[in-house]
């Protein structure tokens, strides 16, 4: 079985975001980029599935040359092949999903893993968009995954519990934290990854469905009041919450 894992290259979650001069993107100066945290769970699940059932795992990433770093990291974790869908533009979720769907189709992958969302734009829709474009089934925000024959069972997180969802291959699974414990790349893995060839393919340009108008900073809150340093401040706190904020 051919398994695809789609990853994105995102600013580390500890990043302090600054808006760039164009007011449409973030200033990348001093920002360190990493493999999207949710995609780490996707890579791990793809590798575990391969270890159980055999096959090949192919990592796919859409973006500029910098995404190669993230592809290499996935290769170092044990992924077999890498495909870089190259574009100089910042694509919307629909264009990213289309590029992924086209590639997954040409590779003939029946099972696809990706993170439930990228921690940059936080759209959380690329997995299902890709699946629908391919005509595949999909289960999003999975914390467990099981494959038996062609039957896929996964638990997805919902408000106040979990749903047990059943469907069948071909299928896209989006990973939530808790799905597994991603492995570290071994030294051997890192050395092998350096030698692997990453296939590069251009992504055609299309007018954006979701037009980027502006990126801006949220209005900063005025710092509040420190009411005291021990429990003697509690009555005042309760009074404020009850009478001023009216939230209790």
């Amino acid at each position, binding site marked *: 079985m051919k398994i695809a894992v789609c990853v994105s290259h995102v600013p580390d979650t500890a990043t302090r975001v600054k808006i760039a001069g164009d007011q449409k993107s973030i200033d990348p100066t001093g920002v360190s980029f990493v493999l999207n945290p949710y995609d780490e769970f996707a890579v791990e699940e793809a590798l575990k599935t391969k270890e159980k059932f055999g096959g090949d795992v192919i990592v796919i990433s859409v973006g500029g040359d910098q995404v190669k770093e993230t592809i290499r990291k996935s290769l170092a974790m044990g992924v077999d092949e890498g495909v870089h869908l190259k574009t100089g533009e910042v694509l919307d979720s629909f264009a990213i999903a289309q590029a992924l769907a086209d590639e997954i189709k040409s590779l003939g992958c029946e099972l696809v893993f990706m993170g439930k969302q990228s921690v940059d734009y936080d759209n*959380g829709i690329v997995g299902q968009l890709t699946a629908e474009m391919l005509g595949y089934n999909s289960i999003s925000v999975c914390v467990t995954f099981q494959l038996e024959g062609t039957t896929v069972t996964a638990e997805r997180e919902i408000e106040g519990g979990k749903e047990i969802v059943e469907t069948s291959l071909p299928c896209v699974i989006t990973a939530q934290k808790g799905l597994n414990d991603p492995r570290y790349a071994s030294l051997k893995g890192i050395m092998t990854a350096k030698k692997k060839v990453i296939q590069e393919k251009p992504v055609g340009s299309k007018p954006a469905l979701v037009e980027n108008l502006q990126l801006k900073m949220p209005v900063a809150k005025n710092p509040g009041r420190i009411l005291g340093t021990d429990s003697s401040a509690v009555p005042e706190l309760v009074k404020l919450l009850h009478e001023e904020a009216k939230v209790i």
Partner: protein
Amino acid sequence: MEKKILAILEQRDGKIKKSSFETLSVAQHFASSLEMTVDAVVIGEKIENASDVFSYCNCNLVHFTHTDLQLYSSSAYKKIVVEYASQQGSEFILISNTSLGKDLAPRIAIGLNAGLVSDCTALNLNEKEIIATRPVYAGKALHEVKLNSQVKMYSLRPNVFKAVQLENKAEEKISTVAVENPDLSNRVKEIKRSEGKLDVAEADIIVSGGRGVKGPEHFVLIEKLAEQLGAAVGASRAVVDAGWRPHEDQVGQTGKTVSPSLYIACGISGAIQHLAGMSSSKYIVAINKDKDAPIFTVADYGIAGDLFEILPVLTEEIKKLKS
């Protein structure tokens, strides 16, 4: 032809959810401003509170019913909504960005050839064009976008838009459609509930604990306060990673983004990932020993002291207030 808005509602256990009333209020607002009419759909076997819909919106409600559709089926729900919206020629489609909405919205968007903006926290009209605002980088920045598609779909972050009751309840226009042979190729078999637990994503009040709680056994202090307030218990990433609390309790960039009316952070220093996930809460209280902790920069009220001494007193005071 009359222009139409479609509001997709969600039921759980036969009850339309609060977040769906928020969606209806947004639909009502745009219907008035843009002279459009509203259709609403809800899918499920039985709906107990369908009549409440008309307290929020003047609309035609269609209830699609089938015994196998009480639990969510992405394949069946998608097909029903796509067919209905195509028939109606709906131009704007609204849904709440709950876990069901998150899963369903992109499927419908593809089915209708629509553009989708997910997790909107504001929709503003600019010359009859909708400008959507959504938090990115877990709320560290805001993105303003517009859709260039014919059919436009927006999913709305729960707890952000207000459910506003109409002055006079609208006329009840409900039709029930029995679904034939729903496509159950992708379906929920069962729901495992976390018994008696309120979810941080839905709670109006959250009491969260961080490293300052010093161990899983001391979370009982947080739980007692939460119980008095009818609040959910949240946690910082540090304590989830340490295994003190389950992942579903985590608030922050790799956990849940929340916007309750009141967020009480106990023993949480306020790492940027955590602040990103909770700073849009309406009121924030911080209780932390270190007066220089970043959590105080977003807090409305703070006590810079020992939570082990403060929390029992706070719990007691709330109890007094409630009685």
